[in-house]
């Protein structure tokens, strides 16, 4: 690598999550208003990566013109929240689109557990590695084993669904240094 590594800025984080999961981090945002005695209103379905862009280090071009790209606790905390929001919405989206258009459930069907379809689960993790990290992971390599460990820990308990496991794998991938740094 010929340049110094750095972390994703806010715009890159948003674009990367959208590419990998098909969704971004959205939620309610508090905005000031004179029309409510509380002084504020909740604006639903706000793009929260953009809302927190300043806290994610974007310059405001008033006081600062340089981005703050420190991978500190503030960035990581929001990256974790962004990953959870995008993964949750991405899985919901996957259940609503044809199999060929899915981003997270690429090589598995909704009901595939590791016990029932171990090769499909491994293949899906490999496919996700390609999408999230732009790398071809070995199906038997340590990274797939680690992600498989996350999937199994979450799904191999009473009442758990495979979707819970894919949510966990998605968050693990999207908060890994390989996703947040480049």
């Amino acid at each position, binding site marked *: 690598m010929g340049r110094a590594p750095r972390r994703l800025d806010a715009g890159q984080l948003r674009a990367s999550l959208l590419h990998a999961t098909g969704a971004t981090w959205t939620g309610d945002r508090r905005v000031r208003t004179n029309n409510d005695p509380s002084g504020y209103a909740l604006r639903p379905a706000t793009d929260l990566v953009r809302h927190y862009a300043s806290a994610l280090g974007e310059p405001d071009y008033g006081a600062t013109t340089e981005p703050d790209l420190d*991978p500190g606790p503030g960035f990581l905390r929001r990256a974790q929240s962004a990953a959870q929001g995008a993964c949750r919405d991405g899985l919901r989206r996957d259940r609503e689109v044809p199999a060929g258009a899915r981003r997270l459930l690429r090589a598995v069907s909704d009901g595939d557990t590791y016990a029932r379809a171990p090769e499909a689960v491994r293949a899906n993790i490999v496919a996700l590695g390609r999408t999230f990290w732009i790398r071809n992971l070995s199906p038997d390599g340590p990274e797939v084993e680690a992600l498989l460990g996350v999937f199994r820990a979450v799904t191999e308990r009473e009442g758990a669904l495979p979707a819970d496991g894919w949510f966990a794998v998605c968050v693990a991938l999207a908060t890994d240094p390989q996703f947040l740094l480049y």
Partner: protein
Amino acid sequence: MSHRARSPSTALRPTRRALLAGLGAGAASAFGLARLARADAPPPSGTAVLLCFFPGGWDQLLLLDPRDPSRFTASEAARTRIDPRYDELVGLGYRPELVRPRAAPAMVLGPLAERPGAAVQLTDFAGRMAVVRGVDMRSVSHEVATRYFLTTEFPRGSLAQGSSVSTTLTALARPARPVAHLSLGVESYNDRHPSRWSALRVTSADDLLATLCPAGAVDPVLADALDAYAREARADVYNRRGLVDRLQGARAVARGLDRDDVSRPFRALVDDGPENDALRARFGISRGDFDGPRARAAMAALALTSGLSQVVIASVAPAMDTHFVGNAGHARLLGEGLDAFVALLDALRTTAHPEGGSHLDHTTVLAFSEFARTPLYNTYGGRDHHSAGSCLLLGRGVRGGVVAGATSDVGMVAVPWDLTRGGASPSGTVLTPAHVAATVAAAAGLDPTAFDAPPISQVLV
């Protein structure tokens, strides 16, 4: 998909959560928020540090480095290069004269030290407050001077060099707090310390709550699985500049926040109810204001008194870069910042510290701006940027009623200061942000040699 509803063992969350949910008991009770108070709050320990930033360049003539208007008259301004114009403040209710606090006879302040109609005044703290004048900022660029003061290292171009003073102070103090170092709307840098001492940087109450609250993975099995994965996650190819190490250090802070819900005292900032009313009344926060200077001052007070943080840096004023308005326009903005700052000091002064005394007795406070404003008006009737700055220290370790450093009576240029005996001296040293940072460190009982200048001994107890 809801992990929260189906979790079989949510009731088995670690007891530390319950224990630390009591954070803020002292703060809450002192703010009149009895319903927030808990008996099981762990006592904060160690000296706290509070750095209050007034962005945009404050006018030293109005507050910390005034001139007698009977001597520095408009007719003399061509010679003195100083024109206070305090008479322009009369319409805002200020007296157009110098303020001499009773508790600090040697200290002379500008008219804004006594806010018209304010119940608590900055001068109420004069007996425990020191003023440092004539700090040479070497720049009249906002970005450059701000980063110079924040780090004490002169920026390369406009790029900050070194670590923030607040980061270095945190690394020296090594506090065992959920968020050791909190930044409320101020840039923060760390190029040499472990990332657990980096600031958690937030810009609003919503942002703070979203950052403190568990990020959603409340299902303990899911949280443990992600935690175990993240502990092992490496990508050495990206670690040439220690980025992966810093990300992993940040993860340790995040794990603590997931484990211990420390957000409780801060909910009063946004949740309607008597706690919210009390907090808004105390700090003068208007409804719907979650990110203004007063809201940030309230967050800073809560962070320190609840034990969330030991080092807090906060932007407590609106931007004051007033080139095109005169004293009255600048005074409105600076006055708003001073109201927030004084409310913050009052909250610390009236909140009992578990180790005795008030929180202000256990906190070293610095108020600063990136530079000052020109002592003469420009052709637009305002003041431009001026590099001889001033700042204010108070609280733990600070000798009250003291003025150190000086500016000249012609053009207000920073003059050399005798660091050993005090007083202006041609053989002395021109004060820099490093002197101020070392003084804050020494006052807080930390090692001042972390900075490239000695502390200003006259300011220290």
